[in-house]
């Protein structure tokens, strides 16, 4: 019996999405389960596992957390040495606000990394979105209120959280549900 275009379209992406893991799927289930009506169920089982992209995002978060932590420690050192004015910041208040921003961002990076590894909805997906908002707020504050040290690296610190937030709310939305 000739198959309709609709059935072909339904099967095709399933095989493509499985990609490299298709052989192990065939071993576990029959080929009929994979491409037949129950193929959707197999795809659902696949989605309950953590995709490599989420793991990559989590690792990047941990690396950024480590770098950010060094920055926080540096600011703490500056604060206790009373060198805020020399570093271009308008007094201790500005330094404290910057310290608070960096501290919150560091904590968010660490927590969202853990959440992404566990495929968590709140501390994975939502904290990644919150991380972007806090990074944006920090950049706006630095540009407008403080020393106006607006450079491309400050843009980079907003761009990557934005990309991560877009990814977790689109491509990985159905994976971060626990």
């Amino acid at each position, binding site marked *: 019996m000739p198959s309709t275009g609709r059935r072909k379209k339904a099967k095709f992406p399933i095989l493509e999405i499985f990609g490299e893991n298709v052989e192990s799927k065939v071993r576990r289930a029959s080929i009929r389960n994979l491409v037949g009506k129950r193929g959707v169920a197999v795809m659902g089982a696949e989605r309950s596992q953590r995709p*490599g992209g989420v793991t990559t995002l989590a690792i990047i978060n941990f690396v950024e957390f480590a770098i950010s932590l060094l920055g926080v420690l540096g600011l703490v050192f500056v604060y206790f040495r009373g060198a805020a004015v020399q570093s271009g910041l308008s007094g201790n208040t500005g330094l404290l606000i910057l310290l608070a921003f960096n501290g919150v961002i560091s904590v968010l990076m660490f927590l969202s990394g853990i959440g992404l590894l566990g495929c968590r909805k709140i501390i994975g997906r939502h904290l990644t979105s919150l991380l972007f908002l806090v990074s944006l707020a920090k950049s706006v504050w630095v540009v407008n209120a403080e020393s106006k040290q607006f*450079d491309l690296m400050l843009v980079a610190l907003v*761009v990557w959280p934005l990309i991560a937030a877009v990814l977790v709310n689109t*491509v990985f939305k159905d994976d971060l549900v626990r």
Partner: protein
Amino acid sequence: MSNPQGVTRTDGIMTGVRFRDLKIIGSTWMRFAFRSGGGVASLFLVMIVGLFIATICISSIETLGEGMGGRGVEQAELVQKISESSFVSNTLTFVLSGTDDEKAAQGDYLVHDRPAMLSLALLFLIYLVPFGVCAAAFNQTAGDIGSRGLRFILSRTERPNIFLGRFLSAFIFVAMAFAILITIVTGYLHFKLGIYPIGDLVLWCFWGILGFVIYALPYVALASWVSCCMRTPFSALAMTLLAAVGSTMVLLIVGLILSAALSEQTWLPKLMPWGWKSELFSGDMTTRLTAYGAMIGFTGLFLLVGLMTFRKRDL
């Protein structure tokens, strides 16, 4: 066309190519690239390393510009002083290729006729293209060939659809990543410094994106070819880097040796796409179109060889 036995031959190199299949395979590969982590990692590489390179390039001129701007220099004069700074001229001498006269003419175009800071950023960032493309496009078919996963797709479509669908998808991914990067740099130059007219910046940004996209084309095709020859993603990455960057290094070293022994060999680097990168931003439209044509030629060659390899490949 019929052979002597009277059997109709329909197995041309592009037989069975269907737009619908290309679309499905392409869109699904891009989603799979993100889900498997390769796409995320390459996007991170392009964005963060790209912005870091642009920061290094721009900040030195920025400091110079801010210093002069702070002393009440007019905007036009500031642009002129930046264009004539020794940092800019030294950088152009290092980055541009060709004879001294060609370098002087192209440098003059890039610095005086176009926004100099964006030109410099583009010339630096273009070094990132081969690495960014290798990171993004290395695993087009290698992983699926190794796991025999492609066998299940072959029953539903022809081989060229798989090869070309994934090539197009990888190309769109790379093009979008570099377009975003250049747009960010252009936006930064406008909002932070504001010394160039917005029209000039946008126009040069467009030409920059076009140059990057066309320069990325042959490298994506090369990655497609290498990927279909390999069985594991890691070997595909290593061999793609070797083919894209290693071969260029060999050509440059041979060129240096020949230049020392005979005369300057300006044609030798042009055997690979790397040798054409500065011509992509040339002020002479004929030179620029020739460079575009060369990139498309390289792409066609790599795609043809890759497609022939993939058609005969044991999957």
